[in-house]
């Protein structure tokens, strides 16, 4: 078993003073990235960037190289454009701040909404949740239980009702009740189902009718264990709803969620949150450097 430390010293040797990086070393880098779901194309892009840096800087030490590698990968992750720096504050001038949550089936949308609501409520914000998943068995019950758990009002019209009308009501209730944040849950849907994606665009349009500029945020939830299909998910959900931010869930397991690097790069959408468990406090603001480090096994990569 080769260790990661070995890998970095080899990589360093291969890069030092050269303009081309050794094949064997690149194979190692490829393995680390591909097994983290970064994908072949993004991996090649990263390797090209490292080669370009090596060519420019000529000599690099192992420590330098490690840093460069991290920087180049982090550089692919889009910047968070919103005023929200630590992920859990909302702009003062948008009241209520309205968030629409979308994604394929079972990725963790409803759970992420519960956790997010708890973060805002902890800052004494008033939160309203919209139960616009009126399709999946007991979806409304699930959101209601989260609402009770965290102390958020849940707007619902029951199962099998029109989701856009629930979303409309949620925003309206948010305004009328002086809420700070409104978060609308939607049913999971696979992005290749045209009707369901059209329904999502409609939900968005109907929300826009209540106040201008709403939803302020469209959060695409991606399951951290998903492979390359997540790229297609991002493509189609962006088309249907103008996604503004990404949450990556289930990163408490062994999956690395590397596919979001290519997604963030291609669609210029920032990753804002990560889910690291099923409990209410298992939501964190996304940190680029920590994320990149986790691809290389956390501390191991820097500790050479």
């Amino acid at each position, binding site marked *: 078993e080769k260790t990661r430390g070995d890998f970095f010293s080899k990589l360093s040797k291969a890069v030092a003073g050269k303009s081309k990086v050794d094949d064997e070393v690149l194979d190692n880098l490829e393995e680390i990235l591909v097994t983290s*779901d970064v994908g072949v194309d993004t991996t090649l892009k990263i390797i090209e960037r490292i080669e370009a840096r090596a060519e420019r800087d000529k000599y690099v030490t192992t420590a330098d190289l490690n840093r460069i590698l991290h920087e180049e990968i982090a550089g692919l992750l889009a910047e968070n454009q919103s005023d929200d720096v630590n992920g859990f504050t909302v702009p003062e001038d948008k009241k209520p701040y309205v968030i629409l949550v979308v994604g394929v089936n079972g*990725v963790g949308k409803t759970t992420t909404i519960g956790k997010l609501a708890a973060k805002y409520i902890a800052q004494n914000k008033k939160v309203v949740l919209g139960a616009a998943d009126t399709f999946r*068995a007991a979806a409304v019950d*699930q959101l209601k239980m989260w609402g009770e758990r965290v102390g958020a009002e849940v707007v619902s019209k029951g199962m099998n009702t029109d989701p856009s009308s629930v979303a409309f009501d949620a925003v309206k209730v948010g305004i009328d009740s002086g809420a700070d944040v409104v978060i609308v849950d939607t049913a999971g849907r696979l992005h290749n189902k045209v009707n369901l994606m059209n329904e999502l665009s409609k939900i968005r349009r109907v929300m826009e009718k209540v106040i201008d500029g709403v939803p302020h945020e469209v959060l695409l939830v991606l399951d951290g*264990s998903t492979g390359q*299909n997540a790229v297609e998910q991002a493509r189609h959900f962006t088309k249907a709803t103008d996604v503004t931010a990404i949450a990556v869930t*289930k990163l408490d397991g*062994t999956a690395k969620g590397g596919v979001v690097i290519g997604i963030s790069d291609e669609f210029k959408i920032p990753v804002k949150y990560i889910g690291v468990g099923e409990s209410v406090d298992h939501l964190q603001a996304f940190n680029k450097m920590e994320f990149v480090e986790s691809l290389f096994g956390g501390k191991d990569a820097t500790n050479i």
Partner: protein
Amino acid sequence: MFDNLSQQLDRAVKNLKGEGRISEINVATTVKEIRKALLNADVNFKVAKEITNDIKEEALGQKVLTAVSPGQLFIKIVSDKLTELMGSTVVPFNPTGNPAVVLISGLQGSGKTTFTGKLGLKMKKAGKQVLLVAGDVYRPAAIDQLETLGEQTGVEVYTERENKNPVEIAQNAIEYAKKNGKSLVIVDTAGRLAVDEQMMKEIEAVKAAVKPSETLFVVDSMTGQDAVNTAKTFNERLDFDGVVLTKLDGDTRGGAALSIRRVVEKPIKFISTGEKLENTLDEFHPDRMAQRILGMGDVVSLVERA
């Protein structure tokens, strides 16, 4: 922009054309393209490497018949290989015992509860007296979810809302099944990560208590490289009998199927292709899955052009 396998192979196959015999040089490029296609389909890194090495060996030195182009021959080698790896024969789902017990396991959100509902309906239609057991005591409204599915399918659901012990619930359910003439009991469980020691112990205990004749591992077909780690651990802990692949109504290539099959050597018993409960649960066809992973619909047309 989207570089699909058809285009990739098209390029590679050009190298093979006009050669009488598959040689080291022209195989290398093609194998690289195949490997990339497998990785794009989420086949595990190591598995993809092994497979392409095997394919290379098999392809090298093969004489190209005058009737068949080198490209065609190569594609045949690849698709045969994948089908073989996927398991050439169908292993039927065959719950036995009185009542027969089926245990459902898997990661969070993989589709266990939905599958439990679907399997219940399928078995009811096959003439079984089915009982579904709500063994997820953690997820908010998990019990309501299964109850709703039971209502929709007309299958009875066993619940104990106040009990937080899934082992007891499952045991009690089997007692209940015996007294009430049920012939098949399907136990739904909470989603869990393979690295969650406490939760893995819990499901081992459920298994030991109810002695299922079929333990099924439910996997989201969109899963990436981690599929093998999870499948390996679940298999070590539960020695499951088969795999269920869900959400195949999406456009994922589904390479996880190949990886899991290769690593744990357990058959894929069902594929799930929709949220509706009716007519969305099918038998697994290894050849179709191989074609899906490779995008063989594209490849067939490629061969026709070659």
